[in-house]
């Protein structure tokens, strides 16, 4: 069935026998049961940091195996300006507002990480989305914020964006709030609650939000410098917030175990206080949970550094993305430098058990080509089908860091790859037929970053 024939074409989900009328699904289990297999993927496409004189774009990728254009970029929404560095993006509404009649999961909020420009794209026509609004950087700087990163809708129809710097690209960062007309409402948090910022996730039933730390934009923008790590310019703390009050209640300093804590993922079950953070430079996965009124955090998965022949120092795995399957059974992640995608069973959240991994790309991957195409960087941003059976990933991290660690990607572009997952057996197998090549575009090769589905994501849907 083509998208055009789908009743869900408007981006809302057709609810069956449920007592809610808003966007998304009533429960994580409902998402698993009711979601159709994904047919369309939205993927960030970038030219920033290359000698390609073109703006970044939203790529529409056909992931319908019955389609003639399967695994191809079938459309692109080009941004009006160059230099944005499109990075992470989010929906105007998710399952957190499934009680909100009249709201639709329809608009993508797409920030430019370097430009601080925020784009609104209407996906009413799933395969022909349209840019409808642009918030210019000056409007963002007016609130002494810059470098927008994670976009989550919040339950009342508003949108919250983590901002990594002040107007000058220095610290502190904070949070910017948009209303449901995509107008800047102002700053969500009292300034000074945190210094560094990066990703965040909230669990409204527990009245908690967790934010993590990268660094000041001026520190990470130009490239990764070990001197900055020694100078304490990279993050190592988890900030737990009172979600209603917008204030930090507890900060956990992870020390050397938690250098550069990036993606934050609570379990999808709204009652849960468990979750994980990937500490990129420490090559650890940190498990956190609440007990006795406090949050606790400790490494539960540790990846060893690897010696590279002829290089000065052992290379850390650089855990750059993690995600949790919708049934909360598996944790997936990517070791960008080592070139590994991994899958752990988290049935016992404090004691993850390795299920499987695929060694591809990066500095050490066993597989360095798919369909004759060189994989010139490691696995990076992940997205999982709602039913947990198909894992997709792209290979670009951040343009200046790409140029530092995988310079070939500027010339050859990124790829998007896929593995078939067997959740019952806990195994993954690379789909050698699936390859989306971002290296072959009219303006020149492009980087590919985060992936989203029209019907919700394992990395964005939150339940009240």
């Amino acid at each position, binding site marked *: 069935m083509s998208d055009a024939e789908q009743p869900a074409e408007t981006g809302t989900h057709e609810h069956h026998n449920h007592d809610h009328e808003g966007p998304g699904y009533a429960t994580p289990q409902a998402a698993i049961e009711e979601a159709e297999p994904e047919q369309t993927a939205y993927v960030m496409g970038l030219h*920033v940091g290359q000698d390609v004189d073109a703006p970044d774009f939203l790529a529409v990728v056909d992931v319908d195996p019955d389609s003639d254009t399967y695994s191809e970029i079938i459309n692109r929404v080009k941004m009006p300006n160059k*230099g944005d560095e499109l990075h992470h993006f989010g929906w105007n509404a998710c399952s957190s507002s499934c009680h909100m009649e009249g709201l639709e999961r329809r608009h993508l909020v797409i920030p430019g990480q*370097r430009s601080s420009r925020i784009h609104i794209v209407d996906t009413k026509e799933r395969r022909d989305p349209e840019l409808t609004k642009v918030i210019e950087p000056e409007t963002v700087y007016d609130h002494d914020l*810059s470098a927008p990163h994670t976009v989550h809708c919040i339950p009342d129809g508003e949108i919250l964006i983590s901002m990594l710097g002040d107007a000058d*690209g220095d610290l502190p960062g904070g949070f910017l709030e948009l209303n449901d007309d995509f107008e800047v409402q102002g700053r969500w948090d009292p300034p000074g609650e945190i210094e560094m910022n990066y990703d965040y996730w909230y669990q409204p039933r527990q009245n908690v939000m967790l934010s993590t730390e990268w660094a000041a934009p001026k520190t990470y923008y130009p490239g990764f410098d070990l001197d900055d790590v020694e100078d304490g310019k990279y993050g190592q703390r988890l900030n737990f917030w009172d979600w209603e009050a917008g204030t930090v209640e507890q900060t956990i300093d992870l020390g050397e175990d938690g250098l550069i804590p990036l993606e934050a993922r609570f379990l999808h079950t709204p009652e849960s206080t468990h979750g994980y953070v990937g500490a990129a430079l420490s090559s650890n996965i940190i498990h956190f949970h609440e007990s006795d009124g406090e949050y606790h955090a400790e490494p539960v998965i540790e990846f060893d550094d690897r010696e590279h022949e002829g290089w000065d120092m052992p290379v850390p795995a650089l855990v750059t993305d993690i995600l949790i399957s919708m049934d909360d059974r598996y944790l997936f992640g990517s070791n960008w430098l080592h070139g590994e995608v991994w899958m752990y069973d988290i049935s016992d959240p404090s004691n993850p058990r390795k299920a499987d991994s695929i060694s591809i790309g990066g500095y050490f991957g066993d597989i360095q080509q798919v369909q004759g195409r060189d994989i010139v960087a490691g696995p990076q941003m992940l997205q999982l089908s709602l039913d947990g059976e198909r894992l997709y990933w792209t290979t670009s991290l951040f343009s200046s860091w790409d*140029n530092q660690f995988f310079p070939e990607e500027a010339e050859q572009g990124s790829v998007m790859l896929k593995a078939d997952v067997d959740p019952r057996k806990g195994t993954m197998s690379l789909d050698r037929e699936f390859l989306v090549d971002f290296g072959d575009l009219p303006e020149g090769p492009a980087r590919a970053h985060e992936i989203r589905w029209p019907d919700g994501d394992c990395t964005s849907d939150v339940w009240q």
Partner: protein
Amino acid sequence: MTEVLLDWRDSDRTETVSVPDGETILDAAAAADIGLPFGCRTGACGTCTARLLSGDVVHHRPPRALKDRHLADGYVLLCIAEPRTDAHLAVGATVQAELVPNPWK
């Protein structure tokens, strides 16, 4: 008005841009329809990094993306750089990539 020679290091391409007084090299190049890499336009991100080969260029805001060693080596940020004399600059994405090498390699 000064004349700035832009030199793409990895190719034979060169372009000359006339930069009016008080205008940045990036803006003057854009006005002449010459595309250069850039990002934040405020001196924080370093995407527009170029290297001064000759001439005199000043930054009209603090070049926060550049460390002292970069400034000493002649790196400049074209988004906030104004030439004071005719100048010759190496440009293109590979110049930015030199700022911080792979620490493990």
